[in-house]
């Protein structure tokens, strides 16, 4: 049977299954409103989800019972993903459960209303923060230390070229990957955090200023921001970084400093847009008029009257912006103009070890090396987004 026939058959099974599911539900449950008013699309969704789950479980059982060798290699990443998913779900659940037991009444209430995704996100962020702060104490080796054995396979199994001394293996010139990942957290996350803070300082103050004063200043700032936003961000950053590389040599200023400022300015344009939009809806409020009529100055208006009312959307934006900044830094490093070696950085690690991905079919453990840094990036991005989603949900007052 051709692929198309297969797809068609599965589609028909799902569509018919949805109708059957609802009908059976109506008959067996004595026509309760839940089944009676269930839209057809929802019923199909249930059936499709059940079939997908069934498929995943059978594949997982197959993966567990597979012979070591080519058969097991086929399922290597799938198995890893399932294990990771299960472990993180349990960890997030335990974390939330602990949060509900310990702490003040306020935090306990917070944890009670928290979805599992958010508690997972918070847990990951805490772990990243701890790793970044205590990198020097946790890492078994230094980030620049060359240890002799190059290309040790992760897993620590001597039979396939691993070494228990280096649980995640070593790179081409023999540096411990685990240590570099840990220091990478410090470098990449630390710099991303500083950059985001700078971007917010620039963007939010100018945005509120434009919103409060209006007139030609607003026009000037907004059009300048439009002009900056018209240029694709990554290419613009790449261009500026190339220029900055020359200056860095000439004036002896570290290139990283240039990178922080360049990315902050580019991202500040997005923050400006948000701050101005939120600001304009706040400045028309009567309490701002009352403050103006009282004779208050601009600083008081912006920081004491407007800012406290804009914190919710700005905080949510901070989370998202942090992810983008973080990805931009990793991308620039991947392209070779970001954080410079020998400093460990996840983007650079992905680039340096990238060609090992070709081994995925017959030696998946080897292909894992570049993916470790890549998944460190992905995990943090996902975690931050989970938390931001939850915060947005809360601040918008949507319940259920």
């Amino acid at each position, binding site marked *: 049977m051709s692929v198309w026939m297969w797809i068609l058959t599965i589609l028909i099974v799902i569509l018919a299954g949805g109708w059957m599911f609802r009908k059976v539900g109506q008959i067996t449950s004595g026509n309760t*409103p839940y089944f*009676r*008013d269930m839209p057809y699309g929802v019923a199909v969704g249930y059936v499709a989800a059940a079939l997908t789950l069934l498929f995943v479980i059978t594949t997982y059982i197959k993966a567990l019972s597979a012979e070591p060798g080519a058969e097991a290699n086929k399922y290597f990443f799938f198995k890893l993903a399932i294990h990771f998913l299960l472990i993180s779900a349990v960890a997030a659940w335990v974390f939330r459960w602990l949060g509900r037991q310990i702490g003040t009444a306020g935090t306990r209430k917070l944890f*009670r*209303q928290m979805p599992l995704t958010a508690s997972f996100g918070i847990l990951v962020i805490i772990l990243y923060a701890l790793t970044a702060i205590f990198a020097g104490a946790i890492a078994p080796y230094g980030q620049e230390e060359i240890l002799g054995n190059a290309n040790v396979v992760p897993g620590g199994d001597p039979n396939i070229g691993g070494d228990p001394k280096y649980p995640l293996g070593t790179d081409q010139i023999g540096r411990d990957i685990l240590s570099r990942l840990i220091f990478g957290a410090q470098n990449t996350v630390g710099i991303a955090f500083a950059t985001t803070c700078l971007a917010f300082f620039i963007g939010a103050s100018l945005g509120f200023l434009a919103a409060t004063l209006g007139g030609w200043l607003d026009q000037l700032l907004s059009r300048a921001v439009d002009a900056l936003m018209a240029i694709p961000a990554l290419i613009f950053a790449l261009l500026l970084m190339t220029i900055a590389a020359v200056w860095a040599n000439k004036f002896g200023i570290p290139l990283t400093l240039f990178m922080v400022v360049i990315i902050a300015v580019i991202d500040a344009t997005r923050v400006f847009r948000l701050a101005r939009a939120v600001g304009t809806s706040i400045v028309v*409020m*009567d*309490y701002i*008029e*009352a403050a*103006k*009529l*009282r*004779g*208050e100055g601009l600083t008081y208006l912006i920081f004491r*009257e407007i800012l*406290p*009312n804009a914190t919710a959307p700005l905080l949510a934006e901070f989370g998202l912006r942090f992810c983008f900044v973080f990805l931009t830094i990793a991308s620039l490093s991947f392209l070779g103009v970001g954080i410079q070696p020998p400093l460990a950085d996840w983007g650079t690690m992905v680039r340096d070890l990238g060609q090992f991905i070709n081994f995925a079919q017959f030696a998946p453990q080897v292909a894992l090396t570049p993916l470790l840094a890549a998944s460190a990036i992905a995990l943090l991005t996902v975690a931050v987004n989970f938390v931001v989603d939850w915060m947005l949900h809360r601040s918008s007052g949507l*319940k*259920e």
Partner: protein
Amino acid sequence: MSDPLVKIRDLKIEGRSDETWTPIINGVDLDLNRGEVLGLIGESGAGKSTIGLAAMGFTRDGVRISGGSVEFDGIDLLGASAAVKRGLLGKRIAYVAQSAAASFNPAHKLIDQHTEAPTQHNVSSRSESVQDGVELYRRLRLPNPDEIGFRYPHQVSGGQLQRAMTAMAMSCRPDLIIFDEPTTALDVTTQIEVLAAIRDIVEQFDTAAIYITHDLAVVAQMADKIKVLLKGDEVEEADTRTMLSAPTQDYTKSLWAVRSFERPKKPAVLTTATPIVSVCGVTAAYGKIDVLHDVSFDIHQGRTVAVVGESGSGKSTTARCITGLLPPRIGHIEFDGVEMPLDYRKRNKDQLRQAQMIYQMADTALNPRKSIGEIIGRPVEFYMGLKGREKRKRVEDLLAEIELEPTQYIDRLPSELSGGQKQRIGIARALAAEPKFIICDEVTSALDQLVAEGILKLLAKLQDELGLSYMFITHDLATVRAIADEVVVMKDGEVVEQGEKAAMFQPPHHPYTDLLLSSVPEMDPDWLSNLLNERGVDNIGDAAVDKM
């Protein structure tokens, strides 16, 4: 007698707050016969709208019906399937919302929205329902009925939109219409024509209606019987005339009595005294268009000047000129005989301090992220230079002055207060500057009648104690009667008439004043009919204003 059209028994509704369900309605019964109009009245939070929606078998998000039954023409609405309800709503039960402007989809023409229900329910074809729509517009006395439906909602005035919405509710000739405060957002002159139109059409088609409002005088014109609600409980129900002439419950009596508050008359001002505020020949413009034309009036020490008029008459613009937010194009403002800089940014602290404002919407007038202590404390610190313990002492004194327990409220946020309490905080903030003159911009129009009365009494008390002068902007003539010493009537940016209150309420007056006065609904159930007989249907509302 046949079964009632709507039969609600022991209805219990709960709302979700902070993870627990709290009761909103505690067992209310309701019967409505065909062709009958029931008025639901009560303060905000009494559960009027919740019952209105429950009569359609519907609840808002975060609200659930926890007990009782709702039957519509023998159909159990609570147990009915979504398909059955879809067949009823729009076709046999219709709903008219408070703000028609927010309820119409701004992207579609009126007639397209009008024809949606009849075509969806297969009552009539599109062309038939367009014809029917035009006919309904004509019956509702909308101007240009043949073409008004082909306009977009923003091209039609508020009162006309509300009538178009009533026409839309009528499009399937439903058995029941629920009117949720349909005239609350309208001016008195506009309100009257909407009331007349709704009443006529409900009578013509013999439609049953539930009319939700907090305005007793309005409900007296519309309803056959009235049900009074208080915090989710029924207080009493009786037919309109009995209810108005002989209410049995204390709560109902107190509602009736609110309208009788009136301050004693003050002695006339000396003509030689310097007025606290004088508005001298002010003409002001937004952009290039003049919105105020040569407005002049004086406000003397210890007196209240009420500025009345419809929306768009320039009341609030006058206030903006006095405070300096909108510098006048011609003319000037004097405080205590001294000419003020026109722009507020050019006034010094002491000049700014002299005139304070209290706003209509206390919700937007208080910064939601600041505690009451901070909100009132800021002007104390800013103008008086008090800090630390002295400042706190002054804030506590101010709270005591506005009759709120200081220790209980000083650390709260505005969201933790009721509407009336918030308005009191707004008053305290104005008092903190120790002004001579306060502008009250529609301060009571967003409040329930009992609460509004409390605010008016507080303002009167403060005036007696501190010798304050008020400029009282309002469109509600009952409020004017209660608190004003002098009245300024405005129309299209001009002062049409001004003088002592007693003189203003006695004929003869300017025809516009007369129109305003006679358009205020009275508690007499025959008032609307009498007025219509007297003036004729074409001489009320906007039509009458346009003729001037």
